[in-house]
């Protein structure tokens, strides 16, 4: 049922990008909009395969850039870099631990905008930067850290609700049955 997970992740990314562009409540309140793509990437890289990571980076990045002033495609590489880095060490990460999810969400939410800004500056663009950017990074990282366990919880629930669980094989074997004597 990998394809269903991929579809769910891409659907969530689509809605997340739209939410970021359409609803500015967090931006008005805290001065920065939370980015939900890095938390989604953390989930995808820990729970799905490399194909989903590639699709999420490509589609999520292009959707994000299409609604923003970014040059098209600039967000794709930073998102994929985060996904690949987590993918490589996924066997060493306790993915079910909320603390691990928080830390990974925090790291990914800082790394994604920093890498994107680095690419933008390398390409000669002049994004709006200043001391306020530090505050924006704090909001992004805390928001991303909180969103990551929520993401895991939501997808876990969707998985339990939508995916049929196969029968678990019984450990009982006839040839090993101990028969009680008279």
């Amino acid at each position, binding site marked *: 049922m990998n394809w269903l997970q991929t579809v769910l992740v891409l659907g969530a990314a689509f809605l997340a990008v739209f939410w970021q562009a359409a609803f500015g409540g967090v931006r008005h309140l805290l001065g920065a*909009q939370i980015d939900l793509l890095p938390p989604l990437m953390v989930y995808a890289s820990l729970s799905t395969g490399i194909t989903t990571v590639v699709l999420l980076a490509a589609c999520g990045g292009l*959707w994000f850039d299409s*609604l923003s002033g970014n040059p098209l495609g600039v967000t*794709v590489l930073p998102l994929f870099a985060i996904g690949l880095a987590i993918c490589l060490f996924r066997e060493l990460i306790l993915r079910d631990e909320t603390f691990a999810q928080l830390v990974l969400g925090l790291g990914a939410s800082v790394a994604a905008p920093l890498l994107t800004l680095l690419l933008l500056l390398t390409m000669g663009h002049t994004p*709006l930067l200043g001391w306020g950017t530090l505050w924006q990074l704090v909001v992004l990282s805390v928001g991303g850290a909180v969103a990551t366990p929520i993401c895991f919880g939501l997808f876990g629930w969707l998985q339990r609700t939508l995916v049929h669980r196969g029968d678990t094989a019984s450990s009982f074997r006839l040839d090993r049955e101990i028969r009680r004597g008279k």
Partner: protein
Amino acid sequence: MLRRPHYIALGLIVLLTLVTLNLPGHTTARLKLGIGSLFLPLFGLAGSTQQATGIVEDAVVTKRELLKLNEGLRRENERLQLQAMQAEETARENARLRQLVGWQLQTSWKLKLARVVLRDPANWWRTVQIDLGSRDGLKVNFPVLTADGLVGRVSSVTLTRSQVTLVGDPNCKVAARVNNETHDSGVIGPSGPLETELVELGYLSRNANLKSGQAVLTSGEGGIFPAGITIGKVVDVQSVDYGSRTEVRVKLAANLNALQEVWVMLP
């Protein structure tokens, strides 16, 4: 460590990035707005949510408040009608005098109302998307404003939607003049990432005579914005770099955080 599928994935992503970043400008703009059109079904949803909020708000307002509001609007309407009459007379007089002197006649502004549908999801740009496009006659660099003041300029256009770069974005520079005795002029640029209501007025002459509260208007230089559109008011003036430069912060007249409807100025 990296395995074969990882290398393939990395190659694909690098290729995609290189291709998209190296496309010609007009192709990228079209592609961007084409991909953005995927969100069209959700625009309706967002619009309906706003409408529903409006209906709930309307239901809460009492009849007494509505009557009071109506009375206030009636009086304001009468006052504005009188002002418009006076302005018409001044415009006629202006036209006669321009004809006598031999100056080119001023054309009146043609405006089109647009609804703001989306904001920039990135924190380092200030752009919005509006629901008018090339089919409504919009083109790149058309000025955008509200009744309070200047908002920005149209930066890219598709058939049904356009992107507006707001004042305060690094890609929207505005030639401005201060409404004082010396008519000091400069260029409006960004102030900071968190100061959404403030912009910086730079490139001022060293002996500029500026005080807080003075109005800042577009100067008409640069060829994009016509002269006389209100930008904001001077908030503070600081002499920096041992007096070699004057830094002026301007509070924008238009509230860019709460933009719902804007006017696009057509030539």
